C-alpha cells in the first residue's frame, strides 16, 4: 500500500462511495433473462439459434447510471452458458467468463448477477461459452447517464449488426480446422490471373502470385468466414429493419457490432453521420460519411434527416462478401435505393508488414520484397475497379494512420467525403488524468493461418502464463500485428485508452482493432483487482487461442483479505 497510485485509487473509491451516499439510495432494478433455443430463418434455411427471452438479438436492457442491477439468468439449454456484460466495469466475479470469473451457468440453473452500474452509454451482452454468441446469444445494453449528455437528440434506435450462418458455430470451427480456407470463396482464379496479366503484364502478375505462394498466404484473406447472412436487429436485407423518424428530428443510432467475425463499413447515403460516442464513451462530435465498426465495438451516431423520404443504412462487410441493410423512414414500408457492393479489396505486402523498415521476416526472401510494389498496385487497381470515385479521394488526403501505408484494407469512403479514423476520436471528457505508463507489455498478435491456430506471442491460451498486472499501475500495451488478419482486441474489466497521440484526450475504448502490419498502443489504468479475460473478439480466433488471462494483483479487495 506504499504505492502513491494505489493510495490515490483507494481514495477515489472512497470519494465515489461517499458521493453515492450523498445522492441518496441508488435505484435498484431486477431483470430476468431466459436463454433457450429457437428456430430462426435468416437465409431461407431455418436453423436452430440461441435466444434470450425468445428473441435474437435478445432484448435491450435499459439501465440507469448509479443503479444496482440484479439480473436473473436462467439456462434452458442442454449445455452450460454464461453472460458477459461487454464493456461494463464491474466486480470480477460478475464478468461472466467461464473459467475466469465463475464456473458458468449449468443447464437448468438460474444464476443471479448483481452489480452497480458505474457508467453510461451503449454496450451489449453476449454468451462467453463455446460458440453460443455465433448462434444468436447476444443483446444490447443502453445506460442512461446521471448527467445531461453533451449532445441533443429527439429519438433513438439501437442498431445491432450481426452475422448469422447456416452452419452452427461448432461446425464452422470444425470446418476451419479441417481446411482453413473452407469459407473463402473469394480466392483468386484463373480469370483473375488473366485480368491481372492484361493490366500489369505477365511478369508482374507471375511475380505477385509467386510472392503470395512463397508465403502460402492469400491476398483475398480479408475474412476467415464468409457465407454469412448479415443482419440489422435480427433482420436480413430483405426483411429490412426500419427505424422511424419525423423529418427534422435528430436521431441517435446506437450501432453495436455483435458479429462473431464480421467487420462492417457503414454509411447512410444522403445523411451526415455525427459520431458522438465510441464504445460507450462520449467523444468530441466528429462528422463523417462512413465508418468502420470492428467486431464488438459500438458507435453512437446522430443523423438529422430533413426530407420526407427513406434512407438506407448500408453496412458492407470489410471483405465485401455481403451487406446488412436497414432503413430509416418517416413511415413503415418506405425504402430507399440500396447501393451495390463494392469489389473486394486485396491485401498487399504492406499488410504482411513488408512496408515496415527493418522488420525481420525471415521467411520472406527478396522475391517478396520485389513484389511489394506490384501488390500495392494491385490493391489500388481493384479499388478503381470497384467504381470508386478517385477524384473525391484527393491524393492529398491523409491516409488513415491506423493502417499500414499501402495497406489494401485502408478504408475509403464509397461516396467520397470523410471516413472515420481512430485518429479522429477525441475524448469528450478525460476519464483519467494523463500520466506516464509504469511499464510496457508487448503483445505480438500471431497465428498459423493454415492450421487455424491463433495465438499471442506465438503461444495459444492453454499453453500460456497469465499476464500479471499490479493494482494501481498504468500499463502500456504494445500490440504488434504479425498476421494478415485484423484483430479486435478486447480487455475485460478495465478501459483501454487508445494512444492516438492526444494525451489526456485520447479516446477510451473496450475494443481496439489492430490492422495487419500495424503496431498500436493502448494504456490501461489498472484499477480493477481480480482475474480478467483479454482476447481477440473474432470468435474463432478467441476459440483457437488468441486469448490471455489477466490477473490484477494487489488492490483493496485482496488487501482486505486476511493473510
Amino acid at each position, binding site marked *: 500500500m506504499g504505492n502513491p497510485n494505489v493510495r490515490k485509487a483507494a481514495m477515489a473509491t472512497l470519494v465515489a462511495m461517499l458521493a453515492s451516499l450523498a445522492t441518496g439510495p441508488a435505484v435498484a432494478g431486477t431483470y430476468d433473462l431466459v436463454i433457450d433455443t429457437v428456430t430462426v430463418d435468416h437465409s431461407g434455411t431455418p436453423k436452430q439459434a440461441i435466444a434470450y427471452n425468445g428473441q435474437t438479438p435478445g432484448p435491450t436492457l435499459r439501465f440507469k447510471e448509479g443503479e444496482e442491477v440484479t439480473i436473473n439468468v436462467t439456462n434452458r439449454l442442454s449445455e452450460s452458458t454464461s453472460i458477459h456484460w461487454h464493456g461494463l466495469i464491474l466486480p470480477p466475479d460478475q464478468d461472466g467468463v467461464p*473459467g475466469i470469473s465463475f464456473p458458468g451457468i449449468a443447464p437448468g440453473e438460474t444464476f443471479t448477477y448483481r452489480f452497480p452500474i458505474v457508467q453510461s452509454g451503449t454496450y451489449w451482452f453476449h454468451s462467453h461459452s463455446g460458440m453460443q454468441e455465433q448462434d444468436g446469444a447476444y443483446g444490447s445494453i443502453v445506460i442512461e447517464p446521471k448527467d445531461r449528455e453533451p449532445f441533443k437528440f429527439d429519438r433513438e434506435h439501437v442498431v445491432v449488426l450481426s452475422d448469422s450462418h447456416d452452419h452452427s458455430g461448432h461446425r464452422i*470451427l470444425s470446418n476451419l*480446422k*479441417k481446411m482453413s480456407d473452407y469459407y473463402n470463396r473469394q*480466392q483468386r482464379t484463373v480469370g483473375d490471373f488473366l485480368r491481372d496479366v492484361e493490366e500489369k503484364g505477365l511478369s508482374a502478375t507471375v511475380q505477385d502470385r509467386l510472392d503470395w*505462394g512463397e508465403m502460402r498466404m492469400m491476398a483475398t484473406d480479408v475474412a476467415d468466414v464468409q457465407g454469412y447472412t448479415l443482419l440489422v436487429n435480427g433482420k436480413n436485407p430483405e426483411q429490412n429493419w426500419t427505424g422511424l423518424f419525423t423529418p427534422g428530428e435528430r436521431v441517435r443510432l446506437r450501432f453495436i457490432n455483435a458479429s462473431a467475425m464480421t467487420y462492417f463499413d457503414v454509411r447512410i447515403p444522403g445523411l451526415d453521420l455525427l459520431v458522438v460516442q465510441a464504445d460507450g464513451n462520449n467523444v468530441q462530435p466528429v462528422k463523417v460519411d462512413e465508418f468502420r465498426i470492428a467486431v464488438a465495438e459500438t458507435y453512437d451516431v446522430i443523423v438529422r434527416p430533413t426530407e420526407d423520404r427513406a434512407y438506407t443504412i448500408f453496412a458492407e462487410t470489410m471483405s465485401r462478401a455481403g451487406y446488412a441493410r436497414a432503413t430509416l423512414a418517416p413511415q413503415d414500408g418506405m425504402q430507399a435505393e440500396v447501393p451495390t457492393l463494392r469489389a473486394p479489396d486485396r491485401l498487399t505486402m504492406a499488410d504482411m508488414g513488408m512496408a515496415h523498415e527493418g522488420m525481420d521476416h525471415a521467411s520472406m526472401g527478396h522475391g517478396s520484397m520485389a513484389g511489394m510494389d506490384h501488390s500495392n498496385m494491385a490493391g489500388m487497381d481493384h479499388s478503381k475497379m470497384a467504381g470508386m470515385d478517385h477524384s473525391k479521394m484527393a491524393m492529398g488526403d491523409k491516409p488513415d494512420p491506423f493502417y499500414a501505408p499501402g495497406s489494401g484494407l485502408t478504408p475509403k469512403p464509397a461516396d467520397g467525403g470523410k471516413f472515420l479514423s481512430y485518429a479522429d476520436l477525441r475524448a469528450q471528457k478525460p476519464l483519467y488524468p494523463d500520466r506516464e505508463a509504469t511499464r510496457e507489455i508487448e503483445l505480438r498478435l500471431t497465428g498459423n493461418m493454415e492450421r487455424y491456430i491463433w495465438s499471442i506471442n506465438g503461444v*495459444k491460451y492453454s499453453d500460456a502464463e497469465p499476464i500479471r498486472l499490479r493494482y494501481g499501475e498504468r500499463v502500456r500495451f504494445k500490440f504488434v500485428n504479425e498476421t494478415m488478419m485484423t484483430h479486435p482486441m478486447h480487455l475485460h474489466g478495465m478501459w483501454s485508452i487508445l494512444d492516438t497521440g492526444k494525451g489526456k484526450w485520447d479516446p477510451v475504448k473496450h475494443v481496439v482493432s489492430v490492422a495487419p502490419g500495424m503496431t498500436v498502443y493502448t494504456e490501461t489504468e489498472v484499477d480493477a483487482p481480480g482475474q480478467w479475460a483479454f482476447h481477440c473478439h473474432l470468435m474463432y480466433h478467441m*476459440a483457437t487461442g488468441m486469448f490471455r488471462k489477466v490477473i490484477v494483483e494487489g488492490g483493496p479487495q485482496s488487501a482486505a483479505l486476511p493473510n
Partner: protein
Amino acid sequence: MQRSFGLAVAVAAVTVALNLPMLGLPARADVMDNAMFTSVRFDQLEYRAGEDTNLAAWDLEAWAGGDVWKLALESEGEYALRPDRFENLENQLVVRRMVSDFFDAKAGIRVDTPAGPDRVYGVLGFEGLAPQWFEVDGDLFLSEKGDLSARFVAEYDILITNRLILQPLGEINLAASDDREIGQGQGVTDVELGLRLRYEVVDRTVAPYVGVHWEKKLGESAGIARSEGEDTDAARVVAGVRLLF
C-alpha cells in the same frame, strides 16, 4: 479372406470416423483451444473406365485429433470389375505430429491386402503444404520382408472459378530392392498422373468430378509385369465424387 479383411477394416474405420460425435467443444476458453476435431475426406471415390478393365477406386484420409497430434487412417483401393478382385488395397494407420507451420511428420503401419500376396510395412513420412500451394505427401515404407520403398505425391488446385477446380496430381513410387512376389522391381517402380475437374456443389462437402487417370510401370517392375503378361500402363477416364466431412 485377406482382402475381405482389408475391406472390412477400411469400411469399419470410415464408419467409426463418420459417426464419431464432434468430440465436443468445451465451453471454457482455457480448454477450448485444445479441442479435438475429426475429418473424413475422400479425395477420390470414383469409377475408372479403361480399354480392358474397369475399376472402382478410392483414396481416403480420415483423422481425429488436435493441433499437434492426430491419428489418421489413410486408405486407398482399386477394385476391378470382371474379374472381381482387389487390384490394390492399402490401409495405413499413422500418428501425425505437427513439426512446422505447414508440415506434419507421420509414423505408423501400412497393411496391403490385395488379391495377390499381402504385405505389412512400417511407415515414416511427412505431409503438408509446400511453397506455391503444392500439397505434398512423402513416405518411406519398410516391408516385413525387409524391402525399402518410397512414395511421393503432389497435387495442386487450379481455381477456374471459386467452385470449379482443376486438380492435377502426380505420384511416383520407388523401391530400393526387388520384391518380385508383388511385382516390385528395384528403381522407379511406377508413376501415376491424374487430372480431375470438380465442382463443389455443397460447401466443400460434396464435389462431383470427371477426369483422366494414367499409370505406368517402369524399369524392372515393368519387366516383371511384361513377363507375367500384364499391361505396363493404363489410361482411364474417371468419374466420381470428392467428399469432406
